[in-house]
């Protein structure tokens, strides 16, 4: 179980190999890699080209938030391994932003926990995206769909 917040890119293959190395109880590894998209769809139709994205975060609180989210996933699913690597700083379209990987004896738990981690980190970890577009810089607003995606994991 680990969390990293870094400016540098990461090597997905090397990260996954390190995560599962020596643990033969893992039968399924679910992986999500978030990338910088070249277009931003606003209100469903309007499109802005993105030249770059700059991610700001709150050092200290970011790591603590991600650790809490990861701990919550471990309470809910039988996980053998998990990893969150989230970048900050300036990135161009096509670059990797975030890696979430979850290993479990069986695939169901791995898929579900991976989706849970991505949904919750989008709404509960202190990151903010600033887009560099041909019209100038623009802060990305919160997305209602992300709130709904995170809310479905709330326990009633």
């Amino acid at each position, binding site marked *: 179980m680990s969390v990293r917040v870094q400016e540098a890119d990461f090597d997905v293959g090397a990260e996954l190999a390190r995560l599962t190395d020596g643990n033969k109880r893992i039968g399924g590894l679910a992986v999500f890699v978030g990338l910088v998209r070249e277009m931003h769809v606003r209100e469903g139709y309007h499109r802005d080209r993105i030249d770059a994205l700059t991610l700001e975060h*709150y050092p200290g*609180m970011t790591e*603590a938030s991600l650790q809490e989210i990861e701990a919550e996933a471990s309470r809910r699913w039988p996980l053998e391994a998990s990893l969150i690597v989230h970048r900050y700083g300036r990135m161009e379209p096509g670059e990797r932003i975030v890696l979430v990987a979850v290993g479990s004896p069986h695939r169901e738990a791995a898929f579900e926990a991976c989706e849970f981690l991505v949904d919750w980190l989008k709404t509960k970890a202190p*990151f*903010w995206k600033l887009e560099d577009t041909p019209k100038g810089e623009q802060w990305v607003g*919160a997305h209602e769909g992300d709130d709904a995606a995170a809310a479905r994991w709330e326990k009633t």
Partner: protein
Amino acid sequence: MKIRYFAWMKRTVGVPEEEVTLPDGIDTVGDLVVWLRSRSPGHAEALAEGAAFGAAVDQRTATFDVKLAGAREIAFFPPFTGG
């Protein structure tokens, strides 16, 4: 007490962080927001009533009724957009 601002709030307020000494009667995050608005037009705009922002007390997400007693660092920020 240190006050920190993130993302667009940092630009609207004009500084990323500031040290403040709270007057008596500022007991909660909500009290602090009201008091900070009087510091400058930028503060008033960033922390306006109805503006979408959240807060953290000593790096833990906090609602406006959370008490400030003993806190060292308060942060204000727009909704998170990571991932």
